[in-house]
């Protein structure tokens, strides 16, 4: 996932949906006041595409979303677990969750498993302190970045971000950039594919744009469906008698019983 942050005041991020993948291409962009994350929708099992349209953007809190790359089960489980912990924490404190809380919970969990929980995450959200974007690696290290990418398509997406990102992008420019970065992953990386999901988070509001772009539609679909005519046309009637074959054996031995 690639994410880019511009300015902390408005807070908001968009998440592009990430598709669960063995190797996910995740991108997220943080915009001034907007946080946008994007993801493709391909889940692979070795060389096979297991899920053409999976969801890689996970809910952590109303103001925090997390995209997961790596082993789909690990990303799902770890984000669910931290999401529950955050909810209990919200009940306990009576306050909105902060991104750094989710960050600390995730990184301490992943570190204690010494990298065996194969989840590479892009965590973003807007809280009282502003918008934040972090990447979390399977061994538990984290980075705070204006834009980030994870997964097998991360180099292709990062090339787009490094060349086109600038501070002060507005909401639509940001969404366009994230979508472009994800498309770069989809078309240049074999581990990413299908559609683009985008999630935009701003202060107090989040917008989950599932299948924001579908640049890989099925071609050659007949709208009427396929029909095969039921009538069989008779072209020719011809009767050919079958000749009876009679074998005459002269002077042979009798057949074995």
């Amino acid at each position, binding site marked *: 996932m690639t994410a880019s942050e511009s300015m902390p005041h408005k807070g908001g991020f968009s998440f592009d949906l990430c598709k669960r993948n063995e190797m996910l291409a995740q991108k997220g962009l943080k915009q001034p006041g907007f946080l946008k994350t994007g993801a493709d929708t391909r889940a692979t099992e070795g060389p096979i595409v297991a899920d053409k349209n999976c969801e890689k953007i996970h809910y952590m809190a109303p103001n925090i979303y997390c995209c997961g790359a790596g082993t789909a089960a690990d990303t799902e489980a770890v984000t669910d677990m931290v999401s529950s912990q955050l909810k209990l924490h919200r009940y306990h404190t009576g306050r909105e969750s902060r991104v750094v809380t989710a960050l600390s919970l995730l990184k301490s969990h992943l570190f204690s498993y010494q990298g065996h929980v194969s989840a590479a995450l892009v965590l973003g959200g807007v809280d009282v302190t502003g918008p934040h974007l972090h990447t979390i690696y399977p061994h538990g290290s984290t980075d705070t970045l*204006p834009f980030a990418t994870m997964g097998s398509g991360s180099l292709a997406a990062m*090339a787009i971000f490094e060349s086109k990102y600038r501070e002060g992008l507005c909401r639509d420019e940001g969404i366009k950039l994230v979508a472009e970065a994800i498309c770069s992953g989809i078309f240049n990386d074999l581990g990413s594919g299908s559609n683009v999901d985008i999630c935009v988070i701003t202060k107090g509001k989040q917008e989950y744009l599932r299948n924001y772009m579908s640049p890989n539609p099925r071609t050659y679909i007949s709208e009427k469906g396929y029909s095969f005519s039921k009538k069989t046309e008779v072209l020719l009637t011809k009767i050919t008698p079958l000749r009876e074959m009679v074998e005459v054996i002269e002077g042979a031995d009798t057949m074995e019983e």
Partner: protein
Amino acid sequence: MNNLIGSEGDSQRTLYPYVTGTSVVGIKYKDGILLAADMGGSYGSTLRYKTVERLKSVGKHSIIGASGEISDFQEIMRYLDELILHDNMWDDGNSLGPKEVHNYLRSVMYNRRNKFNPLWNSLVLGGVKNGQKYLGTVSMIGVHYEDNHVATGFGNHLARPLLRDEWHENLTYEEGVKLLEKCMRVLLYRDRSAVNKLQIAKITEEGFTISQPYALKTFWDFTAFKNPTVGAEGSW
């Protein structure tokens, strides 16, 4: 036959590279070919040499860029110099074009690979002859193809997506250089063995020119870089 992968032959075979160059990026443009490469020669994880010219001209019509083992590139240049010399000695008014040189390199690389003694390079070969532009690549195992834009090493992952999006037919010289610089900048940010000292080589029907080494401008002033732990003092 018994010396194919025998113990006696081992000290003579290339097993791993020592001094290496990183990516080379090449594009076709309106008047010819543009190649870009930085001037770094890494010795493992040390940036040992910073004035290695990895772009050279070949004969009248071609330019070559190499990544990988520098000593093997120097050997390849010796082979090519001999090739061009013999071609000139025919003195028949004809000269080897880029397609022929590319084919020769392909044979050399593939045959060395078959003997388990590769020249540890990925080469980019481009040129113009009789108005025809040509740009191709050969790898150390003999994989070769030609295209409108090629890259070696890390350039495949970082530069190729950009070139696929932004290359088009009939780029002007300025647009071509700008596109190459864009790719080289991303490589500078994201490839650990890149150095900020690059050359751009051009070949057209008129001839070969190579720029003086220069550095790219980089930008490090994102607010998130300036204050990454805002809201979470003490974290990283």
